[in-house]
């Protein structure tokens, strides 16, 4: 089990190899990449900013929770920060397990949790030279005891 916030390119092949072990029959890998269009606007790249110590803490907490929930220690999560041009991987999640269902469910659960609670922000840079912070509808990001409706939180912050 390993998680990291990194400033260099993600080596997706190495991450996949890292989770493999002789008892595992299934490996699920999810990779998020910078795509060329978002909401109809031509994207040149994305800048990822993190509240680093907290983001690292949350990534570690997510991996530990996933280990318990899906019954495997073979989990690696890496998230990149800094400016990423088109096609570069921003996040890579690998989960291996003896059986396929927990491997598939685990990778999916991790990406959803990561998007909901890890303090990382992205600013899209458009080909027209403008740039903008992206709010991605992170419904679950409110603190446990907050209770504020997510839509309200989002509505105001997006403004």
């Amino acid at each position: 089990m390993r998680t990291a916030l990194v400033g260099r390119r993600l080596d997706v092949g190495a991450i996949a190899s890292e989770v493999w072990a002789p008892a595992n029959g299934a490996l699920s890998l999810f990779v998020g990449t910078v795509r060329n269009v978002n909401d109809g606007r031509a994207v040149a790249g994305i800048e990822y900013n993190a509240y680093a110590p907290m983001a690292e803490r949350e990534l570690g907490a997510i991996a530990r929770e996933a280990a318990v929930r899906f019954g495997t220690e073979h989990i690696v999560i890496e998230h990149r920060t800094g400016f990423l041009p088109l096609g570069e991987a921003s996040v890579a999640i690998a989960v291996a397990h003896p059986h396929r269902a927990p491997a598939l469910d685990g990778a999916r659960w991790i990406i959803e949790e990561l998007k909901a609670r890890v303090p990382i922000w992205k600013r899209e840079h458009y080909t027209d030279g403008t740039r903008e912070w992206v709010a991605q509808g992170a419904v679950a990001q409110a603190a446990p005891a907050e209770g504020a409706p997510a839509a309200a939180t989002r509505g105001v912050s997006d403004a």
Partner: protein
Amino acid sequence: MDVLLFASYADAAAASSVRVSVAEGARVADVVAAVRAAAPAIPLPARPVVAVNHRYASPDVVVAATDEVAFIPPVAGG
């Protein structure tokens, strides 16, 4: 206390932190009120998401002057 700001909050404040004074026994809700007063340009929602010492904290959590308090705009990792 210097409250940490990120992304759109930092842009709006034109700073990566905002200094506020918090009385002994103050809670997260009091820090929110103090930040609203000190930096009204930050587009805070009705109940901003706040972290204390790298953990999400509810409005009633008591904060000490030595705690690291951060205001967390809607996250967008992945």
